[in-house]
């Protein structure tokens, strides 16, 4: 059940009439020797950490280590509870949850890198929200995480999920692609639709640079986790409606990798370009790091 890219994954799914998560579980069993029960137990642990991080960020007073961010997720949540949200309650919940988890990460709390710590809010923020809104079971959510991991695996293997290599498109783009595929499968979409949604996610933010202020995983990372959650939901909505991706998933991943390689060093997590290099960005850096 081994696959190395999207085409091979879809072939296996179609031939055996299986969902992406089923194929991914078989691959994991082959690669690691773990049983399905052990794999599911491990993923349940990950899901628990995700739930706790989201709850913590949405209910406690969070302040990041540097003091740059904290409390923003709560603001979005409170507005959604008090007033009519501009983008609808589900979207509002998803973005506040994604922000909450990133805030917990920035405050040295416990999270699951998915696929990285800098993009750790997107997959859980969207999946937990979809789970709540559609009354999904824990087993469903674990299946969703496994589908997400299959997409992340393909991107890691054939391109990169590291901001230092591919910019923010590689981090929050991959996270959104993972989340989107999971949402499509959970909502009854086909494996092909799932990968179309992933492709669209990456296309939507192709070229996005990684320019963290003072080099910290805080700003603009928190807001890009919010937009990543929105990206995942929007792309899933399109795919489930039958809107495909003109460029196939594998080719989009390859394009993302090549664009990442074209990005100068300054725009790949070095904190030397983009927002980090603005007068305000530089002032904040001086204040925090004292340079």
């Amino acid at each position, binding site marked *: 059940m081994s696959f190395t890219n999207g085409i091979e994954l879809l072939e296996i799914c179609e031939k055996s009439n299986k969902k992406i998560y089923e194929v991914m579980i078989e691959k994991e069993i082959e690669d690691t020797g773990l049983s399905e029960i052990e794999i599911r137990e491990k993923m349940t642990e990950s899901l628990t950490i995700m739930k706790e991080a989201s709850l913590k960020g949405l209910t406690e007073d969070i302040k990041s280590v540097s003091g740059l961010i904290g409390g923003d997720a709560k603001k979005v949540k409170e507005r959604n509870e008090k007033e009519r949200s501009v983008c609808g309650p589900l979207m509002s919940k998803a973005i506040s949850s994604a922000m909450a988890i990133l805030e917990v990460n920035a405050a040295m709390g416990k999270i699951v*890198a998915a696929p990285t710590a800098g993009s750790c809010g997107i997959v859980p923020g969207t999946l937990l929200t979809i789970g709540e809104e559609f009354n999904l079971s824990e087993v469903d959510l674990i299946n969703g995480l496994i589908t997400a991991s299959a997409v992340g695996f393909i991107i890691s293997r054939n391109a990169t999920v590291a901001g230092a290599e591919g910019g923010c498109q590689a981090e929050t783009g991959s996270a959104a692609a993972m989340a989107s595929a999971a949402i499509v499968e959970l909502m009854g979409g086909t494996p092909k639709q799932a990968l179309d949604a992933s492709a669209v996610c990456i296309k939507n933010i192709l070229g996005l640079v990684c320019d963290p202020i003072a080099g*910290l995983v805080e700003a603009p990372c928190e807001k890009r986790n919010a937009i990543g959650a929105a990206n995942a939901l929007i792309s899933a909505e399109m795919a489930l409606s039958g809107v495909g991706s003109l460029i196939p998933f594998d080719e989009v991943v390859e394009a993302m990798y090549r664009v990442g390689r074209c990005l100068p060093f300054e725009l790949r997590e070095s904190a030397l370009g983009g927002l980090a290099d603005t007068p305000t960005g530089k002032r904040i850096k001086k204040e925090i790091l004292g340079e």
Partner: protein
Amino acid sequence: MKNYSMFDVIGPNMIGPSSSHTAGACRLGKVAYKIAEGDIKKVTFLLHGSFGKTYKGHGTDKALVAGILGFDPDDEQIKYSFQMAKEKEILFSFVEEDLGEVHPNTAKIMIEKADGKELSILGSSIGGGSIIITEINDLKLEFTGEYPTIIVSHKDRPGLIAKTTAILCEYGINIAFMRVYRYHKGQNAFMIIETDNEIVPEVVGDIKKVAEIDNAYLISIK
């Protein structure tokens, strides 16, 4: 090509904010803790490159100290490691230093033990929380800690490798990778043995009993 597990993608489970600056730093500290075998009195962390520039904002300092206390990268006590080290009367300090042509996220950990013994470990955090150790006591070597790893420090004499591997054979342990290093012919040497099986402490105990083997450590990190 590395075979990615789904838990490499959805994972690691860790304390934020950065897999390379926090989780990886904690693992580097933990390797030093394992090799020191307790009774640490004083630690100096030499921080190179990005580690040196951003260690405060990323909690790299707290994670390194937590590692020295034996914590794993997903332990929520990492945040309080300074206080806990002080309670254990372990002195620690951080020095930004150019360590030469090494990975941007590299630390040299210099330990003084209560009995006066000193040791040093050089290692890098190479992304996603993964690490590589490249020197122990200034001897160049290489291991990642991704496999259960036994480090044997011994005299460079004929037969010691055979005696060590015979013990592993008795316990049914399969060696995935093995390398040997030495300072000079006939002097102090190291074996690095990475295995496919979990290793019970008795294995290391048996290896330690072999004549002319100075010490053996088990490195198993999350």
